[in-house]
């Protein structure tokens, strides 16, 4: 079998594997299924309603610097899930974002159906890293101002209502008549379907993803952690990884040599490792970059979008 068809099969396999884990994410965390939440509640004799809000990863960010809220972590063990995904991000990367977060995946996968000419292409033009860190700073700052922004623009909540409405809880339809519809339009259409990569909200705003990326970036400095690795000596400069990256975290290197990986925006979906025809990108322990960098001549800036 030729290299081309090998790569094609690998990409196809990776596509379906990732799609299936996202669907699994819906069954694990979202009502009416919420299998993960229900399992824990069954063993802890907790009979409260199970939906995505039980496993909220956003509110705990607000509580980190607010000692009066720390008791919540003890009273409801679900909030400890936040620390679990942060730990996983340090050791293995933001796998929750890249493999389980259905709220981020829905826009990414649906945006693949929209022709490129209708999409806003910000890759290589706007750097999402400082914007998302600024957004996170706002999250960490609000407890000091005596308020919260944890639930504002919550795509988890929006997606929960969407799933609930589709699975028979038609009362959730009422939600579409509220002003939240504008927020949904921004998240789902402008930052989602009609943006290159389909993950505009993940790239610019999601504080959960940003915090995971921060810990991933710190963790990737150590040899024992799992990370995206780049071997410059194997890179042919085809630019397939740059085009495949939905988070715009792969760029051409300085002076057109090789590529540059940005762990601060990567969600370890590993699409880049699947599309790389020469195995220059891989996932594992060890140094993040090895090998002599080669010149990339055949990538133009306009080609860098998905």
């Amino acid at each position, binding site marked *: 079998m030729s290299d081309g068809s090998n790569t094609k099969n690998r990409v196809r396999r990776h596509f379906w594997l990732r799609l299936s884990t996202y669907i699994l994410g819906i069954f694990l965390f979202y009502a009416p299924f919420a299998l993960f939440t229900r399992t824990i509640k069954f063993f802890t004799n907790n009979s409260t309603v199970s939906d995505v809000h039980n496993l909220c990863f956003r509110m705990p960010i607000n509580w980190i610097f607010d000692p009066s809220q720390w008791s919540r972590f003890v009273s409801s063990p679900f909030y400890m899930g936040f620390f679990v995904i942060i730990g996983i991000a340090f050791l293995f990367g933001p796998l929750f974002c890249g493999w389980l977060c259905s709220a981020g995946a829905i826009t990414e996968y649906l945006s693949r159906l929209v022709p490129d000419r209708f999409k806003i292409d910000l890759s290589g033009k706007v750097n999402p890293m400082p914007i998302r860190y600024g957004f996170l*700073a*706002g999250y960490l700052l609000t407890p000091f101002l005596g308020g919260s922004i944890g639930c504002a623009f919550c795509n988890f909540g929006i997606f929960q209502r969407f799933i609930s409405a589709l699975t028979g809880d038609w009362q959730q339809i009422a939600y579409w008549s509220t002003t*939240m519809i504008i927020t949904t339009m*921004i998240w789902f259409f402008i930052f989602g379907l009609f943006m290159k990569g389909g993950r505009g909200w993940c790239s610019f705003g999601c504080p959960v993803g940003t915090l995971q990326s921060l810990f991933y970036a710190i963790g990737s400095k150590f040899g024992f952690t799992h990370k995206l690795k780049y071997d410059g000596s194997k890179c042919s400069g085809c630019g397939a990884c740059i085009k495949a990256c939905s988070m715009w975290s792969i760029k051409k290197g300085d002076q057109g040599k090789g590529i540059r990986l940005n762990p601060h925006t990567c969600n370890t979906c590993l699409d880049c490792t699947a599309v790389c025809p020469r195995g220059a990108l891989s996932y594992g322990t060890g140094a993040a970059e090895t090998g002599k960098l080669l010149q990339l001549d055949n990538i133009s800036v306009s080609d860098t979008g998905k």
Partner: protein
Amino acid sequence: MLHISKDRINTISNRTIQNLTGVTIGLTTSLASFQRTGCSGNCRSCQSCTASGIILMASILLVKYGGGVQRIKKRFNKTVDEPHSVKIGK
């Protein structure tokens, strides 16, 4: 040598400006949805998150097309200074 270090300083300062602009956009966006009472999750009139989304969208597009405007200006200046460098039909 001096030229190289000047270039490097320019690059660093450009990058710093870009990063500071980005952080300001992010911070403004998140604080636009600040609520003292918290979100009920069943919104009727509060549009703080909508404001947040619109600020984010507008800022990002401004950064993108702001750069575009500068490029057009640069091109226009070039056309005025060097009229022979512009190809007919382009």
